């Protein structure tokens, strides 16, 4: 379990799940919100990683 991307996926799934259950009441809304949050976590993390790539530290 030393692959950062796998850890990112696990973190995103768990955090999105909790936030979806806190903020939404209906199952359909929860699924939509979960998918939105999960995709945001993953895509924005990869984007931030690429933006930081040129920095030497």
């Amino acid at each position: 379990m030393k692959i950062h991307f796998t850890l990112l996926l696990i973190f995103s799934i768990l955090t999105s799940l909790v936030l979806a259950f806190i903020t939404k009441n209906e199952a359909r809304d929860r699924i939509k919100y979960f998918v939105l949050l999960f995709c945001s976590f993953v895509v924005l993390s990869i984007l931030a990683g690429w933006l930081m790539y040129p920095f030497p530290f």
Partner: protein
Amino acid sequence: METRPISNAAPETGQVEPQAGVFRTTVACVAGALIPGFGHALLRKWDRAIVFFGSIAIMVYFGIRLQGTLYNPAFPDFSDFFTTGFASLKFLADAGSGLLYWIPWMRGLGTGDPTAYTYDYANVFLYVAGLLNMLVIVDAFDIAMGRKR
């Protein structure tokens, strides 16, 4: 002095009567602070209780397993606030998990290894587990107060 009808008194004071009762609301919040999701279980929100406990417990497990640090109880020393203040915040974030923090901490787990490949990720897992549980407690409070279903 102007007198007002009693029916108008409640909205002006802004007080909300807890649906679950003051005692049950307090018990739900304290239970949620001790064990993630337990407050929701007491309020019979089984789906939320299972998801909250499962997710937060898994995050704490990963945090400890990946060699993160469970920060010791620390209070800010105002002569060196920059160093000790952050340590206190890290402790607060970790301790938000309730017994999921205190039991491993008392057993000497979570000593952390800053040279480990996964150290930073592990700490984020531990911080976020505690912070999410704080949100979960607020959610239990809102449900008990009748502000949420």
